[in-house]
């Protein structure tokens, strides 16, 4: 993808003009097909990390035949370094609720759920207040859509859509086999649209301003703006809404502390980009629909020269080893082997060549793991080991 310009800030998500009732009213008055077309032409892609085209998702669910359908807002934000969804839900919750109701109108769903991670329990009182106010408006305008919060209980894997359904159904959060896909067979086996909090917030922008306003931001294949959660060795930690497509070099220029050695893009499931590649790396989605997109949940963790990349990788692998659901062989055993493997190499118990065997293991995990967790471990593992091999050994 083309790397073109400097950092461009945007201000759609957190700008609150208290006009949600207006936007909701107008959107409900439009046909589902119109709304779907609007989303498709905006080229909005999921902001949770998987990057699936939102318009297509709503379209598939709308076409599925069923008397009961669901809209679910995935607020199980657990990717290390990501904290944007929390901010959206506390500062502009009505945008999310509105988007959910519009989605319900588009696909034919009367019930919406917000799957809120257990760690965000403290958000509940305010969020429930917002929902009460929202439902009051719905009742007044005869809009048949109810929203409930479903609390998680500390499981990162429940952010995976099918694991989330399992969790909501009172079971262990173990991802399901796909096909069938959620748009046909989701929560309780019914067609379900499940979207990330930020994705829903963007649909609000699109329904308010029209697709073109959104499309005009960003670059080809990566339209629109995105929230970035910036942390680590930076003088400006926080949440920033930026247009997609910027080069990582410009990002580091803005947010680095002058000594940035590497940036982890997309959390532990993402890629570690070393300094020498900043200029050639652009932040966005790659072209194909079914390809592996750059996991841009938007987490950006900056590491300066004082940080050990071994510690970083060790930390990620500990995370995956704990949070894996444990169902499938490549992920359950693979994560353990990777973690113990790098420790063994560091201690000198295994030859440095063993790292190459571990790299082939991550390839196997990428190809055979049952869900995104196991499939993505390869991203950080290979990017760290390939770029910082010395730090793994000495």
């Amino acid at each position, binding site marked *: 993808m083309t790397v073109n310009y400097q950092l461009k800030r945007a201000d759609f998500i957190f700008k609150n003009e208290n006009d949600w009732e207006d936007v909701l009213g107008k959107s409900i008055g439009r046909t589902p097909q119109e709304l779907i077309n609007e989303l498709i032409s905006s080229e909005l892609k999921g902001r949770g990390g998987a990057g699936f085209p939102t318009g297509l998702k709503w379209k598939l669910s709308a076409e599925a035949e069923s008397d009961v359908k669901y809209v679910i807002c995935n607020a199980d*934000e*657990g*990717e*290390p*370094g*990501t*904290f944007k*969804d*929390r901010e959206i839900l506390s500062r502009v919750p009505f945008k999310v609720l509105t988007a959910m109701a519009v989605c319900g109108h588009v696909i034919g769903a009367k019930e919406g759920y917000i799957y809120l*991670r*257990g*760690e*965000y*329990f*403290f958000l509940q009182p305010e969020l429930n207040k917002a929902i009460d106010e929202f439902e009051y408006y719905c009742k007044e305008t005869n809009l048949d859509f109810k929203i409930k919060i*479903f*609390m*998680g*209980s*500390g*499981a*990162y894997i429940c952010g995976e859509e099918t694991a989330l359904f399992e*969790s*909501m*159904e*009172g*079971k*262990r*959060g173990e991802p399901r086999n796909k096909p069938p896909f959620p748009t046909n067979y989701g929560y*309780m086996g019914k067609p379900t649209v499940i979207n990330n909090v930020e994705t829903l917030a963007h649909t609000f922008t699109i329904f308010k301003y029209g697709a073109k306003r959104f499309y005009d931001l960003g670059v080809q294949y990566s339209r629109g703006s995105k929230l970035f*959660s*910036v*942390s*680590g*060795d930076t003088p400006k*930690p*926080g*949440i920033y809404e930026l247009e997609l497509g910027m080069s990582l070099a410009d990002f580091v220029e803005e947010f680095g502390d002058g000594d940035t050695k590497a940036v*982890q893009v997309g959390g*532990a499931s993402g890629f570690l980009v070393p300094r020498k590649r900043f200029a050639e790396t652009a932040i966005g989605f790659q072209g194909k629909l079914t390809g592996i997109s750059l996991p841009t949940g938007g*987490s950006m*963790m900056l*590491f300066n020269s004082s*940080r050990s990349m071994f*510690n*970083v990788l060790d*930390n*990620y692998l*500990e*995370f995956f080893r*704990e*949070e894996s*659901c444990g169902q499938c062989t490549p992920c359950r055993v693979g994560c353990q082997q990777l973690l113990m493997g790098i420790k063994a190499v560091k201690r000198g118990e295994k030859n440095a060549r063993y790292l190459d065997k571990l790299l082939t293991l991550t390839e196997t995990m990428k190809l055979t793991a049952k869900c995104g967790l196991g499939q993505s471990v390869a991203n950080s593992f290979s990017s760290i080991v390939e770029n910082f091999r010395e730090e793994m050994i000495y």
Partner: protein
Amino acid sequence: MNPVSELIKNLADQHGRNRHNLLPILQGVVEQEKYLSEFSMIEIARELDLPASEVYGTATFYSFLEHKKMGKYIIRICKTITCSMKGKNQILLAIEDMLKINVGETTPDGNFSLLQTNCLGFCHKAPAMLINNDVYTELTPEKVREILSSYLKKQKEGIA
């Protein structure tokens, strides 16, 4: 009726008795009792007509549904990379020093349990921790000591 049985019956009345109501009920018991005992799991199984093993298997999947006896205040320190970089270990040492327990243990008076947890979503204000459902960020060893002291004070006043 046993208070736990009563709690479970009320939760079941409130949420429903289907399989998909299991998680809110488990959460409700943990909210009050701080953990799920063997007895409470059997009661839940009885109330929802589920096999006890299913209740156990589901509960143990979720990190926040403790099945071992916990203290009144459960401290969860984030150990993910950014909090690690910003001094989580000093915070841990300060707590271990003050409460005289290690990670995974509970104070003898049953007030505090110390655990580590994964990313809490406050990376820009690291290091962070949860005490039960409350978040504390931008921690320093002094700040942590102050926070824990205030909990101890609250506890004493509560008893009085």
